């Protein structure tokens, strides 16, 4: 017996009006969502996934328009509803949860006011009862201190709390369908884990259906029943989670998996493979299969002959793919072997950090950091927001001065040497790659001239012809075509801009490169390519790379050593193998368990983590992690600073737990034996 679907999209096409005519955002999209079902919508930026959710809510802005197809909610066409009906649906039967909770809440209304509105306007409930309902809902989304929260303004609470408020607001009307648009993308991973847990619990408890939009395959795997993968506005593959994750049947989906690093697998066992090429612009779509130009199975005269329909895969139940060659490709064959990299050899110590401390008033942003990085080594500094990793980068770059301790670069003390007093030689030796390649490139100068400027400024080369030659060599180095020298930044994609960022950083053949979240603004398939590039160059030049990141998957893939920070202190450090395997520091363990994993070959252990990151201006006494730690020893952890235990050569954990207990920890990820 089949249940009537809750939401159906039939042949849905959405376009946005642009200067030069309509730009298609979604083309011929189909979806059936049953009551109680969670459907993941996955794809990279610009694939049209958010437009679908907004179209369901009929909120596409002035420019956006549904040009074809239907959206049926409980069998009624959403596009044909009158305004009053639509208002009942919006925030009533269908509620939405957004990517940026802070921006989604009204800054000048108290949270209470914003919550109370929902029952008042949807059910005509009186103010008092509405307030009671709002409070009760805050308890259900596990918000402590509900009374205070009701009277607070959004900016007075943390990002994780804001997202819980948005969720509470959505649930207040008891919706049948939740639209979630990247609900955790702006949050730290441990906060994300809490929110995802909440969402999962709620959908089970209330029987709410969900359309979960995300770029994160792991999250979708952990929250949804079905998945649709989008590429360039089209669904390319759709099916039950288990089927698609176990056996992707579209080259793009397969590419996404292959370019997605997993915190569970080490880099040698599962090398990353990026998808070649880049997204076609919506105005210049290739003929035939849209993925054709990037597909390794592309067949001339077949794949580019006519538009490829999405079709059920023979003998698969309800798994479908938009690929003509779905029956011909040997899906189970291992992907073409990738030459594995030889293990790096590390040289002498290039950067030595000793008891480095930086305070802002009463806040100690860096508290006694000590570690070292060797020549040719990649050291990752990981931690969530507020852990002090950016402060450390700024001290290194001379934008801040430390209060005490030292940072030595080849014997030169940098911790109190502002960038304005550093000589060109020092500046050349220590370079930086930024998170946002868009902000650091001057839009009015060509790429070539910007790289040339760096070369001249660092005093590497002055002769004009030689500089030009070196610019071209650098473009080769970062695998950009030489004619990019004449282009302006706006003509480049995000990944290409970050390559330019890499080229600039390496222009002076630096000894140490600090990369501050260099991949987090990029799409998954591009991330893989840029990280490959970064390692390649770093290996070749034997540069020391300090890789600052919150993304443990990327860290596991890129780093040789890992330093885990929490509230300004180092919790654990060791080689990547050591840190990603037991014994763990309890924080590292929680951090690892919070990462959603897309890889079907691994299972993840649940680790309890209570509360949120405390404010850095009032850090807990004793162990800084003690307010959230599941292993806390009362009376010890909340009183005394933990000792630094040397659990293995080169592997340190700052914790009160006895050796044996640390050693007895089980791995967070375990391989499933098929």
């Amino acid at each position: 017996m089949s249940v009537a679907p809750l939401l159906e999209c039939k042949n849905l096409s959405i376009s946005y009006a642009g200067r030069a005519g309509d730009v298609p955002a979604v083309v011929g999209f189909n979806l059936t969502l049953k009551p109680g079902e969670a459907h993941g919508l996955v794809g990279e930026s610009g694939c049209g996934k958010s437009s679908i959710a907004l179209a369901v809510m009929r909120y596409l802005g002035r420019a956006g328009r549904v040009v074809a197809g239907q959206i049926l909610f409980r069998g009624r066409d959403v596009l044909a509803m009158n305004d009053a009906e639509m208002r009942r649906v919006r925030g009533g039967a269908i509620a939405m949860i957004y990517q940026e909770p802070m921006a989604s809440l009204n800054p000048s209304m108290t949270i209470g006011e914003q919550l109370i509105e929902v029952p008042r306007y949807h059910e005509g409930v009186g103010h008092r009862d509405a307030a009671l309902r709002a409070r009760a809902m805050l308890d259900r989304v596990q918000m402590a201190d509900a009374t205070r929260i009701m009277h607070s303004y959004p900016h007075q609470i943390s990002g994780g709390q804001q997202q819980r408020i948005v969720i509470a607001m959505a649930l207040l009307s008891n919706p049948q369908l939740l639209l979630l648009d990247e609900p955790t993308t702006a949050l730290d991973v441990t906060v994300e884990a809490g929110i995802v847990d909440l969402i999962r619990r709620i959908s089970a408890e209330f029987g709410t259906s969900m359309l979960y939009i995300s770029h994160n395959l792991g999250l979708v795997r952990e929250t949804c029943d079905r998945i649709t993968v989008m590429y360039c506005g089209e669904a390319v593959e759709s099916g039950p989670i288990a089927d698609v994750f176990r056996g992707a049947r579209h080259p793009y989906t397969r590419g996404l998996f292959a370019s997605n690093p997993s915190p569970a697998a080490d880099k040698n066992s599962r090398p990353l493979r990026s998808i070649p090429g880049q997204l076609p612009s919506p105005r210049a779509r290739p003929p035939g299969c849209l993925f054709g130009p990037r597909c390794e199975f592309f067949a001339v005269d077949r794949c580019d002959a006519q538009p490829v329909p999405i079709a059920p895969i023979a003998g698969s139940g309800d798994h479908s793919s938009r690929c003509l060659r779905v029956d011909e490709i040997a899906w189970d064959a291992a992907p073409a072997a990738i030459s594995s990299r030889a293990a790096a050899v590390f040289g002498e110590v290039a950067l030595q950090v000793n008891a480095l401390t930086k305070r802002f008033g009463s806040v100690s942003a860096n508290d006694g950091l000590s570690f070292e990085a060797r020549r040719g080594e990649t050291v990752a500094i990981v931690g969530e927001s507020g852990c002090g990793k950016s402060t450390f980068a700024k001290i290194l770059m001379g934008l801040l001065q430390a209060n005490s301790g030292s940072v030595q670069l080849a014997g030169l003390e940098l911790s109190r040497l502002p960038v304005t007093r550093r000589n060109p030689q020092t500046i050349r030796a220590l370079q930086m790659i930024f998170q946002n390649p868009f902000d650091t490139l001057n839009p009015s100068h060509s790429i070539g001239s910007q790289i040339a400027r760096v070369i001249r400024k660092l005093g590497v080369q002055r002769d004009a012809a030689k500089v030009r030659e070196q610019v071209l060599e650098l473009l080769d180095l970062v695998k950009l075509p030489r004619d990019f020298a004449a282009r302006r930044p706006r003509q480049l994609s995000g990944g290409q801009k970050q390559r330019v960022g890499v080229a600039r950083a390496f222009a002076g053949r630096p000894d140490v490169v600090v990369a501050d979240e260099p991949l987090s603004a990029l799409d998954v398939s591009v991330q893989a390519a840029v990280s490959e590039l970064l390692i390649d160059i770093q290996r070749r030049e034997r540069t020391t790379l300090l890789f600052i990141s919150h993304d443990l998957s990327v860290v596991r893939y890129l780093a040789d050593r890992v330093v885990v920070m929490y509230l300004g202190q180092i919790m654990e450090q060791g080689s990547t193998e050591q840190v990603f395997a037991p014994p763990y520091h309890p924080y590292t363990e929680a951090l690892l368990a919070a990462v959603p994993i897309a890889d079907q070959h691994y299972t993840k252990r649940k680790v309890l983590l209570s509360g949120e990151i405390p404010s850095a201006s009032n850090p807990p006494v004793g162990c800084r992690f003690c307010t959230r730690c599941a292993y806390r020893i009362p009376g010890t952890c909340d009183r005394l600073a933990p000792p630094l235990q040397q659990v293995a050569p080169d592997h340190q954990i700052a914790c009160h737990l006895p050796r044996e207990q640390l050693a007895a920890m089980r791995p967070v990820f375990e391989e499933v034996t098929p």
Partner: protein
Amino acid sequence: MRNLVVRRAIQMLLIMLTVSLLLFAIFDSDQFREKAAVAELGGFGIATLSADDYHEWLQKKGLNEPFLARYAQWLKAVAHGDLGRSVEKDVAVATLLKESLANTAILAFFVLLGLIPIALTLGVLAGMNEGSRLDRVISVAAVITTSIPQIATAVLLTVILALGLGWVPAKSAMTDGWSFRPLVLPLLTLLLYDIGYLVRMTRAAMTEVMASQYIRTAVLKGLPPWRVIMKHALRNALVVPVTLIFLELNGLLSQVVVVEVFFQYAGFGRMLFDAANFGDIQVLQAATLVAIAVAVVSQLLSDAAYTFLNPRVRFK
């Protein structure tokens, strides 16, 4: 907040000191002193003013003393509330100032009375539906009124309303007592420009708010449109216009110079203009102090309004 008030007060005093010293120095030049002497001693040409008469005059006025001493004296008098006498009109500056300020205040009151409801309503209506026909009409009108200089508006209005249609008097001297009709032309002249300006600012703030994510949240919560506008949008959109209205107090003080002189309205602007022409230093000094005080106080009010309307600043 208290810090802010203290800071602004100190800032005001410093500006007053500097500006008054500067003015004092400028009017202390021989050129200006002679002019003042000529005017006072009967208005003959400089040629007829004998050196002796001039010296006697200087002596009598106490202008022979050293510059700084006289400045200090003036300061002391001002601190005690004595603003001096107008050389031109031979009345106490305080009296003169009181009358003219009262007149300008009346004008300003009516300007604000018209400005605030009209401009805010039009701005909000335009910004609410960006790109609609109503928005286009309002925006174009606002651009036009703000791009015509006030002196041109004044001429235009006089020609049409006073000379052409004869509805209102062309001049606002009000020699036979106060009445509203002569106020119409200066009022309209000021309003046309100010409304245009405030409409543009309000519209910009409103369109920004309407495109924000929290308005999307409010709409997608299923709230009725009036609730979205009145409760969610206005609170945020009006912060900037309201602060601008307070700053407008200061702007008005300079705008009235043109308008009052043109329409011969006996207000602050007119007084300032006459005093400057005559070199009536005591009046100028006092007027400058008032202008600075108005500037600083309106700035302070506008800061206070911003803080009050913005919880992100109010509850750090």
